[in-house]
C-alpha cells in the first residue's frame, strides 16, 4: 500500500489529488444505505434536489438528480427521516464529498403512505377538499357516468343496483384500468371525458376492493384534480369501507363501496312513482274538496240571494199597499177638503158684500120708489098745512099790528126787542120798525115810569 502511494509523483495539483480522492471514495462507497434526517433542502429549477443528511453528530451533503427526483413517490421535506441509497462521490469544483442518491425512502412509514399524507396536505391547503366545494347529488339523474374497470366486480355491482333501484336510468361507462402504470392518467382522462358529456349528470368513480397498492391510482394527483374539476358531482367508491383514498376526499360524496355509490346516485324509482302518485292524488283531492266547498258557499250565497229577493218582493208589495193606502187617504182628505172648501166658499159668497150689494141693488129702487111716494104725499099735506099756517101766521104777524100803527123797537147793537125803557141807556141807537120802513133813532131820554 505505502509502496503504491510512494509511486505517486511527490508534487500533485489540487485537481489531481481531488480526482484521486474521488476515485478512492467512489471505489469504497459504491452502494451504501444511509439513514439520516433531511435538512438544508434546496430545489432549484433544474429539478435536482440538494440537501444535507444529518444525525446527532454529523452531516453529509447529498444530491438527488432530476431523473431520480421525478421517480420519488413523496416530496422531500425538512426534518424528514429517510433511508437514502447511493454512492459517495466528490464534487470536484468545491472539493466536497457528497452522497449521490439513487433512491430515497421515508423511514418508518412507507413511501406510499408518506406520499399520500403529503399530497393530501398540499391539496387540502389548496382547498380541494373543502366541505364548501361539495355539491349536492342530483335527486334523480337520468344518466349516470361510471369510471371503472369493465372487468371488476364494481361495475357488476353498480349495474345491478342501478337496475334494481331505478331501471330507467341510463348508464354511460368509461372503462379504465384501475391499477398499474398509467391507471391514474386513464382514470383522470375518463373523468374529464364523461364530465364533458352533457347528458351525464353524476359520476361514479371507483373500483372494488384490493390491496392498498392496488388502490393507489385513486390517490394520484391527476385523478384527485379531475374529480375536483368535474362539471357534475362525483361519487367516489374505492375498495371497501376501510379504504380511504384522496379521491374520496375530493369527491362530492364518498360511498364506502361501489354498490353504495349506485344507491347514492339514484333514487328508488318505485318510491318516486309512489310519491308522484300520492302528489297527484292529493292534488285532486284538495281541488275536489275546494270545489265542493266553493259550491256550498255558492249555494249558500244563492240562498241568501233568493231570500233577499223574496224580502224585496214582500217589501215591494207592502210598499204598494202603503202607497195605495196613502193615495186613498190623500184622495179622501182632498175630497173632503175640497167639499168643505166649496161649502165655505158658498158660505163666504153668501156672507160677502157681493150678495148684499145684490140685495141692495134690488132694495134701493124699491126704497126710492117708496121715498118718492112718501115724499109726494107729505108734500101735499105740508103744502095745505103751510097755507093754513100762513093764514094763521098772517093774522098773528106783528107786521099786521104794525099796519095798525104799532112799531117794534130793537137795539141796533143786538137786535133785542125792547119791552122796557130801561132796557136801553141814553145815547143808545135803536131801530124802529114801522109798517113800512124803519127808523134808527137815538135815545135822548129814558123814562122808566109808564104813562106820562
Amino acid at each position, binding site marked *: 500500500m505505502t509502496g503504491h502511494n510512494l509511486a505517486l509523483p511527490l508534487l500533485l495539483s489540487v485537481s489531481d489529488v481531488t480526482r484521486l480522492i474521488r476515485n478512492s471514495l467512489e471505489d469504497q462507497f459504491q452502494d451504501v444505505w444511509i439513514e439520516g434526517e433531511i435538512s438544508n433542502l434546496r430545489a432549484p429549477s433544474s429539478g435536482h434536489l440538494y440537501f444535507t443528511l444529518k444525525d446527532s453528530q454529523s452531516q453529509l451533503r447529498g444530491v438527488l438528480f432530476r431523473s431520480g427526483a421525478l421517480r420519488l413517490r413523496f416530496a422531500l421535506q425538512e426534518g424528514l427521516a429517510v433511508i437514502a441509497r447511493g454512492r459517495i462521490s466528490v464534487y470536484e469544483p468545491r472539493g466536497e464529498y457528497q452522497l449521490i442518491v439513487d433512491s430515497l425512502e421515508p423511514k418508518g412509514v412507507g413511501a406510499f403512505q408518506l406520499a399520500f399524507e403529503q399530497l393530501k396536505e398540499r391539496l387540502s391547503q389548496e382547498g380541494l377538499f373543502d366541505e364548501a366545494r361539495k355539491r349536492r347529488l*342530483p*335527486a*334523480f*339523474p*337520468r*344518466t349516470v357516468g361510471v369510471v371503472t374497470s*369493465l*372487468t371488476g366486480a364494481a*361495475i*357488476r355491482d353498480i*349495474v345491478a343496483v342501478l337496475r334494481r333501484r331505478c*331501471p*330507467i*336510468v*341510463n*348508464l*354511460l*361507462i*368509461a*372503462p379504465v384500468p384501475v391499477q398499474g402504470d398509467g391507471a391514474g392518467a386513464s382514470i383522470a382522462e*375518463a373523468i374529464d*371525458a*364523461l364530465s364533458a*358529456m*352533457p*347528458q351525464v*349528470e353524476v359520476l361514479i368513480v371507483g373500483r372494488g376492493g384490493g390491496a392498498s397498492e392496488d388502490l393507489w391510482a385513486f390517490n394520484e394527483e391527476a385523478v384527485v384534480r379531475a374529480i375536483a374539476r368535474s362539471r357534475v358531482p362525483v361519487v367516489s367508491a374505492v375498495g371497501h369501507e376501510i379504504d380511504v383514498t384522496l379521491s374520496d376526499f375530493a369527491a362530492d360524496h364518498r360511498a364506502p363501496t361501489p354498490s353504495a355509490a349506485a344507491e347514492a346516485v339514484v333514487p328508488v*324509482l318505485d318510491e*318516486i*312513482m309512489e*310519491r*308522484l302518485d300520492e*302528489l*297527484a292524488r*292529493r*292534488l*285532486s283531492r*284538495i*281541488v275536489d274538496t*275546494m270545489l265542493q266547498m*266553493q259550491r256550498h258557499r255558492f249555494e249558500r250565497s244563492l240562498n241568501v240571494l233568493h231570500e233577499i229577493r223574496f224580502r224585496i218582493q214582500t217589501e215591494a208589495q207592502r210598499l204598494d199597499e202603503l202607497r195605495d193606502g196613502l193615495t186613498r187617504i190623500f184622495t179622501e182628505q182632498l175630497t173632503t177638503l175640497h167639499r168643505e172648501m166649496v161649502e165655505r166658499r158658498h158660505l163666504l159668497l153668501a156672507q160677502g158684500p157681493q150678495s148684499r150689494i145684490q140685495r141692495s141693488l134690488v132694495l134701493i129702487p124699491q126704497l126710492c120708489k117708496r121715498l118718492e111716494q112718501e115724499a109726494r104725499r107729505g108734500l101735499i099735506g105740508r103744502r095745505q098745512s103751510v097755507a093754513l099756517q100762513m093764514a094763521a101766521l098772517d093774522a098773528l104777524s106783528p107786521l099786521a099790528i104794525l099796519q095798525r100803527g104799532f112799531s117794534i123797537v130793537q137795539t141796533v147793537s143786538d137786535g133785542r126787542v125792547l119791552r122796557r125803557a130801561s132796557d136801553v141807556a141814553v145815547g143808545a141807537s135803536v131801530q124802529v120798525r114801522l109798517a113800512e120802513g124803519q127808523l134808527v133813532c137815538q135815545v135822548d131820554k129814558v123814562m122808566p115810569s109808564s104813562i106820562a
Partner: protein
Amino acid sequence: MAAVKFEYAMARLETIVAELEKGDLPLDDSLKIFEEGIRLSKTCLKMLEDAERKVEILVQEKDGKKRIQAFSPGEDESENS
C-alpha cells in the same frame, strides 16, 4: 338536463300541493296552480315512462376519437371471467 327539469317539476309539484293544502289561496289562483300541478304530474310521469334505459360504454377508437356504444354487462363479464 331532463333530470333538472324533472327535479324542478317534482319540487314545484310538492310546492303546489303544499300551497293548496294550506288553503288560503283565492279560488282562481288555486285552480290555476292546480292545473299546473296536474300538468306537472303528467310531465313527470311521461319523463319516467319515456326513459331509455340504456347502458353504454365510452370507447376510444384507434384514431383517438371517443365513441359511445351499447354495452351488455352480462356478455362482457362472461368474456372476461
